């Protein structure tokens, strides 16, 4: 398999941009990534676009606006992991030798508030069972039950990520918060308060990949996995599951594959961006990715390891809790952050000497994406 290198990255800041179209945000991100990579018209042979709400031919509209069409353009929907799915396809196209340069991007414009998803049947909506934050809350409660996580730990995740996000010009929320303020924010679904949940929003991110020499930031692995059946609180959002707590979650399936493919393990990582759709989801990700033993997430957080300055900073970008979550763009937003970390470009939020990084997204489908980057 050939070496896949990240030749360039670009972002349109995540936030609320009522006067900017989905296409225009995509243009900003793709143009920036192409410029960094010094790739122009005709310089790439395929494009992959991750989006969940972007509609028909979303990627074609972006490349059409750039005046760069003719190559295969593939739009990819995989919920919160859409960008990860697009990246996986793009990386395969290069490592297999099919192409030597491809563009991957994610774009999204989400309405405010609880996400309305065509995933649910009308009867589920009518019965009040399409309550996405309710599922997050049930998952949080089980984590509290099995791992000794408390509401104070959930607040501490928010405080950590918002502190990181205050240093990120591409984040939506750029102010620090206190644990007391988090716990005083409106209760959405016990134990989750409003500030413990990320905000669906708008933005774009882009990455140019090429067959590489191994001298720049290398894409060591990009994996996408779906769920195995049986877990009632799986991101696949079933109406029932088994009384079996041993079903391996999709995040763990993807992480195992990514570590195997890259020949690396959790102990090799210097920096991680993981899915913090809600504060409990970040802690659950520590366990599912193998950053700590099962049941050890509260202890890992308390140790300070996952804060900037710690042994393994998690979400130095501020995470989705600071950036907001434009579904199709969120996974590539993580990759952009990590590439900049590995290039030592992150200034006040830089993880010193970072050489190995992992990005993780998981969401409805279920889909879980894990990307390992190395310099």
């Amino acid at each position, binding site marked *: 398999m050939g070496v896949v290198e990240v030749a360039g990255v670009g972002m349109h800041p995540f936030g609320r941009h009522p006067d900017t179209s989905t296409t225009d945000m995509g243009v900003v991100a793709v143009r920036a990534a192409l410029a960094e990579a010094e790739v122009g018209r005709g310089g790439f042979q395929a494009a992959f676009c991750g989006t969940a709400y972007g509609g028909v031919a979303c990627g074609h509209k972006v490349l059409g606006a750039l005046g760069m069409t003719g190559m295969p353009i593939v739009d990819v929907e995989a919920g919160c992991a859409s960008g990860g799915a697009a990246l996986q396809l793009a990386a395969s196209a290069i490592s297999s030798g099919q192409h030597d340069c491809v563009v991957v991007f994610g774009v999204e414009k989400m309405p405010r508030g*609880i996400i309305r998803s065509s995933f649910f049947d009308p009867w589920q909506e009518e019965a*009040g069972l399409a*309550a996405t934050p309710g599922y997050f809350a049930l998952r949080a409660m089980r984590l509290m039950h099995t791992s000794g996580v408390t509401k104070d730990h959930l607040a501490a995740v928010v405080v950590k990520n918002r502190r990181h996000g205050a240093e990120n010009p591409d984040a939506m929320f750029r102010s620090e918060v206190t644990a007391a303020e988090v716990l005083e924010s409106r209760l959405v*679904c*016990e134990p989750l308060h409003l500030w413990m949940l990320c905000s669906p929003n708008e933005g774009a991110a882009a990455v140019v990949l090429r067959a590489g020499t191994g001298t720049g930031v290398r894409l060591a692995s990009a994996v996408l996995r779906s769920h195995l059946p049986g877990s*009632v609180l799986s991101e696949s959002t079933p109406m029932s599951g*088994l009384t079996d707590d041993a079903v391996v979650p999709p995040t763990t399936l993807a992480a195992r594959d990514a570590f195997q493919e890259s020949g690396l393990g959790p102990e090799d990582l210097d920096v991680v961006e993981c899915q913090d759709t809600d504060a409990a989801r970040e802690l659950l990700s520590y366990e599912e990715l193998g950053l700590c033993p099962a049941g050890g997430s509260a202890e890992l957080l308390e140790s300070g390891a996952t804060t900037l300055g710690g042994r393994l900073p998690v979400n130095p970008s501020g995470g989705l809790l600071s950036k907001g979550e434009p579904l199709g763009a969120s996974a590539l937003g993580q990759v952009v952050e990590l590439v900049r970390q590995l290039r030592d470009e992150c200034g006040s939020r830089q993880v010193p000497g970072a050489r190995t990084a992992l990005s993780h997204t998981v969401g409805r489908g279920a889909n879980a994406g894990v990307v390992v980057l190395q310099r």
Partner: protein
Amino acid sequence: MPVRHGLFVEGPPPALVCGRCGTCAKVHFPRALLCPYCSADTVDEVHVRGPGTLWAFTAVTAPPPGYAGDVPYGFGVVELPEGVRVVARITESDPAALSLDESMELVVVALHTDELGRSVVTYAFAPGS
């Protein structure tokens, strides 16, 4: 009228319409044509009545998309003796009044009145006596 036909029987006593695989014996809900665990087409309909035990719970405080009923409402997962955990509304909307592993009874509750004046009902679980 039920929020969807084929999900539950109103009774009394009410029951969830589940599928039990004739090949791997696992139980799923709602009943499907093929077993979601082993793909076999040997699914039999079984009616699951409970009681069960409360495995996870919360309350939904803001109406989610497409929902016309009252808030807050209880929302949780109940584990049933047939080896299945089911996502359901919980009749108690104050999480402080619930506890893990408590006994839960299957009930049928009203959701809202539709445009033809009919009461739309669904399955739910209520704390046992």
